């Protein structure tokens, strides 16, 4: 298994190299540059030219790329042209927000999706089945940002149950340690801060979970239905195992393989959903920041963040691959 992990991590190097080259060329082919975003309506052509010259954007693209790679090797991702702060600092401060949000959304999606999909399959053709299949269709169809606005209109504006924006009430003056607010609250025993951070996660994570939840329900349901018709299930029932044992040991575990694969892919997809969710809920994470960076032509942020996201995506999928061997002992990684 160790060799498998090392091999997968080594595969990252050419992947990142190729991705960075493509990104670099693509970003610089976009019309306009950071200079106009920086200067706005106040810029004269001379000022814009001066900024381009200062940033080295008037040099050949390969020279610029060479400089970028040299910096990358030293793990220096540069400085954001729009916020003037180091890209790594920006990432360290914003990434935890996205992680908290996606993990909570995944917990909701998996925690609700798998049992619901399983029950729908067991009660095939009955009310629960129709309701969950129909509901999941709606979940897939509703745009995340719209759901976000609706949830806020009901639960924040009218009922005042949940906050409508941000990650934590700023008046609490909570201590920052890791920038994972819930964890920070636990670590510093600021229980109110941890609870408040959790409270702020509820609406955005429900909005973000809507699509993966719907997909997990459907895949689980289909997968369980398929496994229920397998010979080994009939054999297990025939040899007198209890219903509970058959379901847990034979049906659920075998049905989980495709679900696990889709969860790996969905986790990556959550990052794109996070762009909208974070914007709607003014949630400080990398999604909203990347969206702003595109508008600002903030090359260092886009390059840095997309490369880091690629690494994270590969790592998540590596974890999913490793999880196969826990779910199904037949799949042994070598």
């Amino acid at each position, binding site marked *: 298994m160790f060799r498998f992990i090392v091999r997968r991590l080594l595969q990252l190097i050419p992947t990142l190299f190729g991705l960075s080259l493509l990104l670099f060329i693509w970003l610089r082919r976009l019309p306009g540059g950071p200079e*106009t975003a920086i200067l706005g309506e106040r810029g004269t052509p001379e000022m814009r030219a001066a900024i381009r010259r200062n940033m080295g954007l008037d040099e050949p693209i390969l020279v610029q790329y060479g400089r970028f790679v040299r910096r990358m090797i030293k793990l220096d991702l540069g*400085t954001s042209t729009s916020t003037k702060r180091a890209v790594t600092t920006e990432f360290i401060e914003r990434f935890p927000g996205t992680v908290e949000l996606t993990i909570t959304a995944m917990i909701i999606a998996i925690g609700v999706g798998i049992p619901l999909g399983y029950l729908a399959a067991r009660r095939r053709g009955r009310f629960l089945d129709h309701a969950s299949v129909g509901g999941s269709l709606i979940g897939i169809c509703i745009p995340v940002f719209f759901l976000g606005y609706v949830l806020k209109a009901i639960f924040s*504006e009218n009922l005042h149950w949940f906050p409508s924006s941000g990650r934590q009430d700023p008046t609490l003056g909570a*201590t920052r340690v890791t920038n994972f607010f819930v964890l920070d609250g636990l670590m510093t025993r600021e229980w109110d801060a941890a609870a408040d951070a959790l409270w702020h996660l509820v609406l955005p994570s429900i909005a973000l979970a809507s699509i993966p939840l719907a997909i997990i329900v459907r895949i689980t349901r289909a997968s369980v239905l398929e496994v229920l018709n397998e010979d080994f299930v009939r054999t297990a029932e025939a040899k007198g195992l209890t219903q509970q044992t058959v379901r847990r040991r034979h049906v659920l*575990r075998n049905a989980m393989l495709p679900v696990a694969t889709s969860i790996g892919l969905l986790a990556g997809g959550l990052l794109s959903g996070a762009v909208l969710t974070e914007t709607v809920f003014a949630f400080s994470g990398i999604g909203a920041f990347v969206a702003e960076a595109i508008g600002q032509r903030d090359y260092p942020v886009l390059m840095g963040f997309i490369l880091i996201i690629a690494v994270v995506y590969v790592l998540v999928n590596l974890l999913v691959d490793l999880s196969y061997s826990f779910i199904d002992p037949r799949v042994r990684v070598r």
Partner: protein
Amino acid sequence: MRAPRPKVAIAAIAVAALAVAGCAESNRDDKSGGSKKDTLVFGVAGDPKVLDPSFASDGESLRVARQVFETLVRPEEGGTKVTPGLAESWTPDAAGTTWTFKLRSGVKFHDGTDFNAEAVCVNFNRWYNAKGLMQSPDVTAYWQDVMGGFAKNENADLPPSLFKSCAAKDATTVDLSFTRVSSKIPAALMLPSFSIHSPKALQEFDASNVAGTAEDIKYPAYATEHPTGTGPFKFKTWDVANKTLTLERNEDYSGAKAKLKTLIFKTISDENARKQALRSGDIQGYDLVGPADVEPLKSEGFNMLTRPAFNVLYLAMNQKGNPKLADIRVRQAIAYALNRQQLVTSKLPPGAKVADNFMPDTVEGWNGDVTKYTYDPAKAKALLAEAGASNLTLKFHYPTEVTRPYMPNPKDIFELLSADLKAVGITVEAIPLKWSPDYLNATTSGSKHDIHFLGWTGDYGDAYNFIGTFFDRPKDEWGFNNKALFDQFKDADSTADIAARTEKYKALNKSVMEFLPGVPISHSPPAIVFGKDVTGVKASPLTDERYATAEFK
């Protein structure tokens, strides 16, 4: 191998939670959980870029700077007139090139050091002697806008500096000398970029050390963590992870102390999200209210403030892009073709006005007696026919994905204007472009654009800041070279006597509206809203709102 059981997982999480609990020190200020009635959370559209306003040109950085710092002169509350700030009075010498400022005494910086004439000179010399990356136009935008260049220009394109020297005559008297007479002085010194910083803090945190490489500018810690001024609020924390910036009351402030104990700016970039946050009570006010939300929020009882209009929306005509536009009759025809009143009534926020000058009437030099182009499609058609341009085709650029104080809804504005142009027989070729950077690039450089609309919000109450910015030299946006007009600007700018200068600007507005390089369309009053129980803030045309006077009822 057995699958992990839920119970095992829950137990593992519980153990992990116990293990981390209390493993870090809380540095929470016990007082921070006090009454919510002395804490105002205000929603803003973006994070500030830097906390040292010397390096800032974005509205959000300047908003913070206005609470933490003070300038020698400042705009009157709710207006644009120059009034005392850190200086009590100021007078120019006979030549108009040296200004003597009499400073307030007993003022202290947030670090406890004294504010005096020496401190003023340290600040001006810091800007003037900027080297290396500090001369980059994106680092010191406003200094370059007002003063031009530096003591030693490192780039041949930079103009010579308007600022010459600073002399501290005694603790409360300082002389600022300039290389020539300029209408920008003293009004431009109201800009937050000319805020006076504590010399001790500047040195301690190496504030002028803008390092890194040209493509990768690194700002010193002063600019992100230690802004030290004399203002009614002190900087406390900037929590990027939670998108909030916290200021606390300066208990040693020399003037009337802030009524709020804590002022928090919370970034909510989405306009709808800001509105929802106000309604749900997360924030107690926000800026950049959408025009469509003004009336509903007002009727719900929120405290809606309207800033006096300090901007202009205009239609620019590029005489190089389309030679037909070099014919004054064609430009006049376009001006007569536009039903600006209808646009103002139907698409702009309440209080918006049709513009007759390229600057609002709150600025000295505005002239009511200029050529006016009231809606007259018949006259427009006649003028086009006379100019032989009856089958005129114009490329009409308009921006997408943007809201500016002077144009809340560019697409609607485009549709109305292009319908007016079509009504007089002009064929319009629509070119929508993304605001930044595509639209701005396409309309302000090169010569491929015909007509487009754009606007400007003034930085300070000075005519030059509006019309001079547009028309004092050849610019790609307009594509004309009118030497007589440029000379007229030079003459007005170098007139020392303020009354005489105002007259010259009045004449300039008349010349501009006769030459008609474009059509001024409207002045829109942007709105800012506060919670139902928040009072005390006066809306400022320069967005110089003073949160120190805000209080809860």
